[in-house]
């Protein structure tokens, strides 16, 4: 199996966790179908669906033509006719080719039928920068979908969450856009033991990755690790104790956990790797200023990608994406305000 099994340990990486989630849900729900490019014979460009066509058959796992709009639209039609569907985008960047089917056909279906029709479809794909993927293999375009009512949007940062959120998403009954951080797929340092028994991670529940009392980092995806590193630097070099909140799901957003943290730290930096303008970091800041202004001792800051595409060469990519240095600098600014 191409999904690397670490010999002598039961730790699972992020990719294996996703593969397990799909396998277990396929076994649990015989109405679950998998659609995507190269997901059957090949097992997926990254191997997330490795072995699933073999195990569950070609009538459950479909190699689709290179037609993102059809992949999503067919998923919607199958859902209308009783199926649950996982639709893979080979890279989340290509989701733009299926955009209309997602935001106009899928997202609105429950609304425009006054609740008659549920669309249990999870559109998932590898996302994010930091890997030299260049403009069209590095995107985090989650804001498009957070801005389209009717879609849930999630982004796990650990193997445990990847598995639990995928299972929850497939059982949710609503359309979910699922951002997988491809730089984490095979990252051994975050591999972990997963529970033997069935579990889910609820959509709309944040996780506190580091407790602290001086300031709060609110983040998700790969940036969770950048924030944790920045928190260590702040603590060791400046004696500043930062809390790190991994929101895990953007829609619905667990605002309570954020405000509870702010009640303690009174300072916040929101970090994500999407462009700044109209991004989800801005949304979080707006909600904090609307709903928890009294708790703030400093203006809430954002650390995001510059308003540029993601370039290829390493120095260029590092320049535009948020990194530990930028996060530390922002942390110092709010801490010393």
């Amino acid at each position: 199996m191409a999904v690397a099994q670490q010999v002598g340990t039961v730790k699972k990486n992020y990719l294996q966790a996703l593969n397990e989630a799909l396998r277990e849900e396929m076994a649990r729900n015989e109405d679950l179908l998998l659609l995507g490019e190269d997901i059957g014979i090949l097992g997926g460009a990254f191997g997330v669906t490795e072995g699933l066509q073999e195990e569950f058959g070609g009538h459950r796992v479909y190699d689709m033509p290179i037609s993102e709009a059809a992949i999503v639209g067919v998923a919607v039609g199958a859902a209308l006719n009783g199926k649950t569907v996982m639709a893979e985008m080979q890279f989340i960047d290509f989701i733009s080719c299926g955009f209309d089917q997602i935001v106009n056909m899928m997202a609105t279906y429950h609304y425009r039928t006054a609740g008659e029709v549920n669309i249990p479809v999870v559109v998932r794909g590898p996302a994010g920068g930091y890997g030299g993927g260049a403009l069209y293999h590095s995107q985090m375009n989650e804001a498009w979908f957070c801005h389209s009512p009717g879609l849930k949007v999630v982004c796990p940062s650990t193997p445990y969450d990847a598995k639990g959120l995928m299972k929850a998403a497939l059982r949710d009954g609503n359309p979910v856009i699922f951002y997988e951080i491809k730089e984490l797929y095979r990252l051994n340092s975050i591999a972990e033991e997963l529970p033997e028994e069935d579990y889910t991670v609820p959509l709309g529940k944040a996780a506190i990755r580091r407790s602290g009392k001086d300031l709060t980092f609110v983040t998700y995806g790969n940036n969770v690790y950048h924030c944790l590193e920045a928190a260590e630097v702040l603590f060791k070099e400046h004696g500043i104790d930062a809390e790190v909140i991994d929101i895990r799901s953007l829609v619905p957003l667990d605002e309570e956990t954020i405000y509870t943290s702010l009640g303690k730290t009174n300072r916040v930096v929101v970090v994500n790797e999407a462009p700044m303008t109209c991004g989800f970091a801005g949304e979080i800041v707006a909600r904090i200023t609307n709903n928890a202004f009294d708790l703030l001792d400093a203006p809430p800051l954002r650390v995001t990608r510059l308003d540029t595409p993601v370039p290829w060469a390493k120095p260029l990519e590092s320049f535009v994406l948020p990194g530990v240095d930028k996060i530390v600098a922002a942390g110092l600014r709010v801490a010393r305000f």
Partner: protein
Amino acid sequence: MPTSSAQTSEKPKSSANGVAKRPSELLTKEQCLELFQHLYLARYFDVRLIKEKKRGRLRGTLYSSHNQEAVIVGSIYGLQPNDWISPIHRDMPMFFLKDARNGLRNPNRMGMTIEEICAQVWCKAGSPGRARDNWSHIGSQSKHIIHSTSMLAGTIPAAAGVALADKINGVNNVVLTFNGEGSTAQGVFHEAINFAAVRKLPVVTVVENNMWAYGTPVELECPTEDVADRAKGYGIPGFVANGQDVFDVYDKVMEAVEWARAGNGPSIVECKTFRAYGHGDHDDDRAAKYRDPKEVAQGRANDPIAVCRKRLIDLGYLTGDAATQYVAENKGAGEVTNEDFPPEVVEYMNEGIEFAMNSPLPEAEEGGMWVFKE
């Protein structure tokens, strides 16, 4: 295999036993007369709404199906009750004509009632979609009608998905999707039919070629003489029907439906017709300028009700007074009167309108409901 090249041949197919009958030749007298009645129902729905709008009792744009009723009626008449359809903006009568053979007033048939459709047109809570989106953007999961959005050709992928689910479940329903000729230029038209062809799914795409897509003539939308020729690229049959002749539409669509139900996969049926008025009623005045009056006169020369009447007379199904009764054909919406229609047709529509007028508007708070399934 049915001819895969577009063709308009009226000739019946020959078979080993001699000459095979066309599907329409197997229709009984009662069925032929029912088709005729459905044409009246479709036409009356259209002209009545135009009148209602002129009287100020109705808001919203109307997309007239005047002169295109043979496509609507002929393509769905032969379906099985559980077959699926996905109508578009010019197909309003299709919602209440689906499975009408099981009784127009039978609430349990696999089609909508005239009450539901009128409530939708009147933007009332009695609409199947509780008036959340306008005009033809309704459907029913249980009645097997796919809900469309405004995005042209946008429901063909869903049609393929519905067909895929049926196929997996071993259910042999056919899915009919409807699209204007202009909409065949959309990318999803290709993506969806390509997929359906690869997987041999029973999806029949009926193209209502009314020669105009809003202000753009067909030759600027499609490079081939017959839109059905698009089928060639998918290795699937492309049929061309005379869209003014309800029997020819019935024949070609039934051939496509049987082909699909036998497991051979999708096809395209182009029905050549002509848009009588503007794109929507807001466009009537401009359409009178951007279209040559001669072209319009020619396009409307074969009114589907007249064409059907002639066939019924030739068959001996309409005789004596009945043959010349209720002349609704070749009259504009402003000229035709209730007396030009059979009274039961007017009565049916009256029932729908009365229900709609009495149905309340939806409660304001509903605007915030049903974003997510709880």
